[in-house]
């Protein structure tokens, strides 16, 4: 007996909410798993009526979409949660933002109206700050990078060394000087999400390969945006369809998510 948990009532999910958040400051050093734990606890403290899976080990229903790697900051991270009572997205935003530590900042919460969130995200725009590199060096490297058709770089993954083409997913790559930070230049790149993913680090490895660009200090990586790359090479806001749909219908029932 009792191989299965008692036939407990598992409250069904009645609404899905899509969350846009940022990872800033010293919290750039958190891993995705760190964020998951912090977020689950913030959900409980904020009193958001999160839905759970059934079974011996019930898990909160949270789906993450492609997380930025440990060490990278981000202005554009996304996840989706399921809740057991209809909630006002704005109240959920405020409650979660208050419950999360400074640095994990909730930017927007919208109700999921249609489609799948992962399907709306296939490309990222990154900003990489390089310290101790001149503008001329960086421009030269970028030019060579863009003129090269394919650049193989190596990365050590859990299952051994992997060779990636760092050039293939790069849609655009540019360089500007940072007026506020003397001695720094800023790369901005738009990179398609492939499997295995090519990360800004891999692009930097590619730059080093084509032109010996090797900054003396570690680069600062920040994701600026994520979304679908449209035919004009613009990134579409992945929450826009939900926002538009919400604006077109009656306002959501007002059930506060806060205690």
């Amino acid at each position, binding site marked *: *007996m*009792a*191989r299965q*948990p008692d036939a*407990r*009532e598992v409250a069904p999910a009645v609404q899905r909410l899509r969350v846009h958040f940022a990872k800033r400051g*010293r*919290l750039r*050093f*958190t*891993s995705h*798993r*760190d964020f998951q*734990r*912090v977020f*689950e*606890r*913030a*959900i*409980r*403290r904020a*009193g958001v009526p999160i839905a*759970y899976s059934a079974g*011996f*080990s*019930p898990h909160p229903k949270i789906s993450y979409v492609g997380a930025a790697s*440990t*060490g990278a900051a981000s202005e554009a991270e996304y996840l989706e949660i399921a809740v057991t009572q209809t909630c006002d997205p704005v109240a959920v935003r405020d409650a979660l933002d208050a*419950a999360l*530590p*400074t*640095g994990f900042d909730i930017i927007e919460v919208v109700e999921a109206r249609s489609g799948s969130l992962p399907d709306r995200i296939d490309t990222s725009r990154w900003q990489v700050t390089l310290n101790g590199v001149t503008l001329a060096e960086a421009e030269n490297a970028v030019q060579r990078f863009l003129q090269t058709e394919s650049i193989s770089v190596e990365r050590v993954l859990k299952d051994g060394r992997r060779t990636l083409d760092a050039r293939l997913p790069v849609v655009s790559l540019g360089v500007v000087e940072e007026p506020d930070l003397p001695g720094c230049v800023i790369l901005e790149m738009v990179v398609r999400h492939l499997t295995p993913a090519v990360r800004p680090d891999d692009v930097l490895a590619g730059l080093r390969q084509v032109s010996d660009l090797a900054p003396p200090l*570690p680069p600062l990586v920040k994701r600026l945006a994520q979304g679908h790359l449209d035919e004009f090479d613009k990134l579409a806001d992945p929450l826009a369809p939900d926002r538009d749909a919400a604006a077109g219908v009656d306002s959501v029932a007002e059930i506060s998510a806060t*205690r």
Partner: protein
Amino acid sequence: MSVSKPVQYVGGELNSVVKDWASCDVRWCLMYPDAYEVGLPNQGVQILYEVLGELDGVLVERTYSVWPDLEALMRTHHIPQFTVDAHRPVGAFDIFGISFSTELGYTNMLNALDLAGIPIEAADRTDDDPIVIAGGHAAFNPEPIADFIDAAVLGDGEQAVIAITAIVREWKAAGRPGGRVELLHRLARTGNIYVPRFYDVTYKPDGHLESVRPNRDDIPARVSKHTLMDLDAWPYPKKPLVPLAETVHERFSVEIFRGCTRGCRFCQAGMITRPVRERSVDTIGAMVDAGLKASGFQEVGLLSLSSADHSEIGPLAKQLADRYEGSNTSLSLPSTRVDAFNVDLANEFSRNGRRSGLTFAPEGGSERMRKVINKMVTEADLIRTVTTAYAQGWRRVKLYFMCGLPTETDDDVVQIADLARKVIQAGRTASGSRDIGCTVSIGGFVPKPHTPFQWAAQLDHATTDSRLLKLRDTIRGDRQYGKAIGFRYHDGKPGIVEGLLSRGDRRVGRIIKQVWQDGGRFDGWSEHFSFDRWMSAADTALRDEPVDVDWYTTRERDRAEVLPWDHLDSGLDKDWLWQDWQDSLSDIEVEDCRWTPCFDCGVCDTMGTDIQVGPTGRTLLPLTVVT
């Protein structure tokens, strides 16, 4: 240039507090001398952090051992040991308090001192260096680190840290009269803060201790432990630290009582934390509610040395389970005795949320061994308990044992296999299923100070290992049940080093320093521990002494011997400990004084304390319903 898991160094935990440096006049740095993932959840450090943080004008921050990758970077770039709260240098604080749950953190303390720029030897420190204070269970014999610490506090820390704060504050406000030595003298005069430099140790020509005497006439010959008497008045932690990084315990823990009088003769914790002091059901209920709200944790641990022994554990478990019905909040009892477990309790604990595994600690494999150690659990108790558990749907039970107990023979250890077989048999019968397992987990016994076994010879590591292998082979060779029995064991070598540090005297400090100089760090981690490094350091450090590692570990002491911790008073009467040691050799058991008359262990008399047990008949206060 990067370090593993950088998040462990960034601070910013929920409920951590950063105060303004200049507006505080007493500044504490607390350390748990192990990796962040182990140290952050430590209940002792969290309690003291909160108690001190609530005081006006007191700043308290934390630091943990840095992994070798970061240590290398810090040494290259001249970055000192820093706090995680505000990344301040440890050397700038007034007091550096280090909590030792285990002696294997000693090398990490030396490394932290060195990284902090604080002289390793207390004698070399100046008025600008922090006062280095050791606490935790290992502080009941701090002699091996006596040269490296300025002071040690024995026992409960809540009130002690406040008293120390007041003394430091007064001394600083008066313009630091008499410098560091005067401050230490003021601490020593309280009678329950141990300042090693004020106690002289003399040795006999054969290497035995001759005497330990104070070298000032206004400090006591014996230093007493602190005992906090009203746990309800000290409901800490109120706001537990919730880390960003993953740690070894991810739950909110409430101590439901302190102390234990079961009288297991190997158990230092049970001996040095007497008397039993229960926290009342309503205080526990309020702490659980506040702690969960402040943390968002999904699991509550009801902590103590033997949690099912709380006089109202049944009502407590039921009321908590009722309160958190449907909220996916699970309860856990980290230490449960075989004879105190019952099915109602188990069901309450698995009602909401996850059903964790069941762990019991018979400790000794044979009935005779359990008498020797006074475990007071019979085979019938164990079989009855696991039968209940298997019948209720549990499929796996973990059993803890020790190897190398006094008077033990190979046969006593091999009998563990019989016991495990009977457990599986009982499980298959009770559940009607063959999908039944048990795991035998076994490690070497280390005799500890302030226990009846403080005189015992520790078993050498070669014999320990051979007994463990015999047991393993017996289990694996069992064609009927062997596959259902898991076997985990720790080899005997780390236990010998732990034994050396546990019952060592001041001469052992030289070994610790040598090991650290030879690169020893994180000795509690098998991938960093090196037995050979410890043995070769001991050879060097004890070259001119008539004693060696065996003398400290595998040698039985006689009654007249001066023990290195005799001047440190845990409240236990040495004559009673000796009698209990003699009783153990005659297989005589001693009852628990909670349910039988006092048997004069000495604690209540000498400390002016008393046992505090319920039932109180109180209930959990209803929570205001939130909608």
